[in-house]
């Protein structure tokens, strides 16, 4: 019997700037051709226990390949201890805690969270509690914030071949705020509202990184059968669908559990049946046999009709387990004949001898893994029977979810002794207090009064998270309308043209050049376009004649030359000049020169 749906969120937001424990940039331009390979060993945490999620990973016995990027150093590859903590990120974490009405810890105490899926080269993630016991006001009442942590982001998975997983290191160590709510959220819409509310504060403050992975949500869901953690929900909209799917899944399992509880699983026992498939028509089986995999068959006791039938999808629950151990596929009696398997069914059934209500399945597997898969399937069926559905799941492209691993426990934490415990001083609190993200209205007002631009421009800049860039551009250029135009129009235009992102730090030197050379808007635009569209180096740009406006002498020579060939007047001189040169010039100066030339005895 299901109880009330309870939903909590874990919102992860990457902070831009430099990494949490070194001064590598959070941004990367390329993956290098260098890599290395590691293995991770399961260690017990501080209490002597081994975490269940970690134990589970050990069974899978994988090796990890890491690709180096241009923003990695010895720390990222676990070859030196952490440097000093990134103070800016820490202040922003404190400020965010304050904005979310959290209490702030007296001392920041970094922990190692054991994660041996390879996503951290060290085998653990460094994480510290910064704020706790806060809340945000939503349209459906208060949602409480249980904790705000400042942690290292994990490495980005590039490829997963089961036994060998490849990660890129660009993301590893990026400061990540993890904001966890209490399960106060009532439905999918409410979850979206809450996530948006929190995320926006950091985007508008200009602190969040941009890009597809910069903000990710995990959803905690419960309807009375244990907590399910759904990992890696990238877009807010998918929250709704994944929750819908989960409710439906758990409901069907609730019905199922009544039917299968008490059933013995002794007959779930994989036996090799490769011989039967020697001449199979099934392409997937053929391919796997060529790779050294074998075919195994088992009875699925009393499961006939529940494997894939209406709402019942027990087949998928079992397939999820098999895939995690690199299985080439599973096919069960509710979907057979199919996948090119037909002629084999008769000898298969003869060999397996399922009872009337029994289903059966064939599994394509590495022979080394078959015992483990069998064991894990039994565990899974027992837990479904007893309606203990708590586990970690992951969302897939179709917005359904898949089993990933058991829920981790507190056992996976132990102190990060390489990072000294840091007291949160009064000064730090004051400093953080000054930068607390404001509400949307407050911010727009601030921007308008600070830069003297329109409310609309202010809104666009803020929603895009470009406030810092505006401030920086203004500081260099000393001209707020040019700075605002740069952010709102010029840069997006060029980005559209080159179909790519431009890092603002690459723009800064050109702005400085512009200031030095006293360029006007046109030259600046032209320079930016030359730099990013035509890929002209900064050095060349600095020397380029193209970017020097015609001086009085050059203008005079050009006008004289035009006058030789045709009649010119103040009306046509500007278009005539434009037709002759792509270089910039001051039209009023051109007119002055023309006038004085006409006055003088040149004519």
């Amino acid at each position: 019997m299901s109880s009330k749906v309870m939903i909590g969120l874990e919102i992860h937001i990457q902070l831009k700037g430099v990494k949490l424990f070194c001064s590598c940039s959070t941004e990367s331009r390329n993956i290098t051709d260098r890599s290395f390979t590691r293995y991770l060993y399961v260690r017990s945490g501080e209490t002597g226990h081994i975490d269940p999620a970690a134990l589970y990973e050990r069974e899978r016995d994988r090796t990890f390949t890491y690709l180096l990027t241009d923003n990695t150093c010895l720390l990222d590859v676990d070859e030196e201890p952490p440097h000093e903590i990134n103070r800016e990120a820490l202040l922003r974490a404190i400020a965010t805690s304050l904005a979310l009405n959290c209490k702030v810890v007296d001392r920041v105490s970094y922990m190692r969270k054991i994660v041996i899926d390879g996503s951290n080269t060290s085998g653990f993630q460094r994480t510290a509690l910064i704020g706790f016991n806060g809340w945000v006001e939503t349209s459906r009442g208060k949602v409480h914030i249980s904790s705000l942590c400042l942690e290292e982001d994990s490495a980005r998975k590039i490829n997963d071949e089961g036994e060998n997983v490849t990660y890129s290191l660009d993301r590893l160590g990026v400061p990540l705020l993890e904001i966890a709510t209490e399960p106060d959220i009532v439905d999918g819409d409410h979850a979206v509202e809450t996530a948006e509310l929190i995320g926006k504060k950091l985007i508008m403050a200009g602190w969040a990184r941009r890009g597809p992975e910069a903000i990710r949500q995990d959803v905690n869901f419960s309807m009375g059968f244990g907590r399910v953690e759904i990992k890696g929900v990238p877009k807010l909209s998918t929250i709704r669908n994944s929750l819908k799917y989960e409710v439906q899944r758990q409901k069907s399992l609730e019905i199922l559990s009544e039917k299968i509880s008490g059933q013995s699983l002794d007959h779930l026992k994989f036996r090799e049946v490769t011989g039967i498939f020697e001449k199979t028509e099934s392409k997937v089986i053929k391919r796997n046999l060529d790779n050294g995999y074998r075919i195994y068959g088992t009875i699925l006791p009393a499961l006939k009709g529940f494997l894939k039938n209406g709402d019942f999808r027990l087949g998928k629950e079992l397939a999820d387990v098999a895939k995690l151990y690199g299985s080439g596929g599973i096919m069960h009696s509710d979907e057979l004949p199919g996948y090119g398997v037909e002629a084999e069914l008769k000898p298969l059934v003869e060999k397996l001898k399922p009872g009337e209500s029994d289903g059966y399945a064939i599994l394509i597997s590495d022979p080394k893994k078959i015992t483990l898969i069998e064991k894990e399937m039994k565990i899974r069926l027992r837990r479904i029977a007893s309606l203990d559905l708590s586990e970690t799941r992951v969302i897939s492209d179709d917005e359904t979810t898949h089993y990933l691993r058991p829920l981790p426990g507190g056992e996976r934490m132990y102190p990060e002794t390489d990072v000294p415990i840091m007291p949160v001083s009064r000064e730090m609190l004051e400093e953080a207090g000054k930068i607390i993200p404001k509400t949307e209205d407050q911010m727009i007002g601030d921007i308008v009064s600070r830069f003297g631009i329109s409310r609309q421009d202010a809104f666009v800049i803020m929603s895009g998270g470009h406030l810092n860039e505006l401030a920086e551009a203004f500081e260099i250029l000393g001209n707020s309308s040019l700075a605002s135009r740069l952010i709102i129009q010029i840069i997006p235009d060029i980005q559209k043209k080159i179909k790519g992102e431009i890092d603002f730090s690459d723009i800064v030197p050109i702005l400085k050049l512009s200031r030095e050379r006293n360029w006007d808007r046109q030259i600046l635009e032209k320079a930016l376009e030359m730099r990013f569209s035509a890929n002209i180096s900064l050095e060349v740009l600095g020397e380029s004649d193209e970017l020097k406006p015609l001086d009085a002498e050059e203008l005079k020579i050009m006008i004289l030359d035009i006058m030789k060939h045709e009649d010119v007047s103040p009306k046509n001189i500007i278009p005539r000049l434009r037709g002759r040169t792509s270089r910039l010039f001051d039209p009023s100066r051109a007119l002055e020169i023309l006038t004085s030339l006409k006055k003088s005895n040149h004519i």
Partner: protein
Amino acid sequence: MVSLSGNTYNIKLKNGYNFSIPAESLEIVEIFPPRAAEVSEVDTPVPAGKHKVSIIGTGGTIASRVDYITGAVKPVLNPGFLRDNVSSISEFDMDLNLMEPMLSENLTPDDWIRIARLAKTGLDKNRGTIILHGTDTMSYTASALSFMFPSLSGPIIFAGSQRSSDRPSSDAFLNLEGALEFSKTNLGEVTLAMHAGLSDDRVALHRAVRSRKMHTTRRDAFRTIGSEPLGYYFQKKAQLKGDYRGRAKETVLMDRLDSRVSIVFFHPALVASDFEAMVQGKKAVVIMGTGMGHTASRLYESIKDTISSGTKVMMTSQCISGSVNLKVYSTGRELLSLGVIPLGNMLPEVAMVKSMFVLANYPHEDFEKYITENMRGEIVKNEPVFQEVS
């Protein structure tokens, strides 16, 4: 769970986070007696396989754990960590001999002698001896043992780690796995088994007297200087190559050392009185000179006096790699004429250790003969042009 560290309480929350509170801000209401630790890693006995190997624990990171009181990593030897993570462990019959663990920086020549004696006992009963040791002074201890054993019936292999074994990314297990495999081979020298690169796929076997820790933290910090490693453990196979010494019929230990020696690191601010202070009371001094083995001429008088007082003065280079050669430049020729003994490409630290051994075991007048003789491969004859990159 609450623990007290200095004036701070560390409170472990249920989700695993620690929470630190200054002691003064907490009022203690009641104290419960601690529960018995729930240890899930039970120390079941390690199974005995067919390869008899002696394992000597001296301390060091390879057998360290986080000390949750001071927060620092402290050497606490727990051999059980082998069982879970060294895949080939069941092939071996381990004869464990655990000394009181010490940080390697605190080891003295007297400790080297104790370790050497344990290694002798270990080798007399087993096919090989593995010594777990801190990496800081591993090359010093291993070099000392190298000289103290003119003849070995099996390998003495030092293994250490740069990441403590309580971390999932520890290098301890692979290094030990490599050392165990090398213990089966025909090797009869003192060596070091440490990660060859950043990957967990290759362990290099270094000749002790050519090894040096060349980085503070990397797992591939140890290098064979001026030559190739003696072998690699790769794809679960230990392969020796090149010019290693094989097992001898018996193990001979010469366990005397004279520790009245020192190293003088020459630099442009070093003056004669510094040199004199540094060599006071020493029987032998190794200078780490510049380039091919030079010092400023302002030291010549002091060097001359030191030599005439009976102290041996040797020359090595602070460049670490390459040979000293006192014949090429005029400075070198003058140092030679003062009686300074050039040591070719012997590493400075190895020269220091070797001089302890030569002083204690050979007549004073034969010092130069023995110190310059290539006893254990401490001098590389033909330095390769490009070394294999691992």
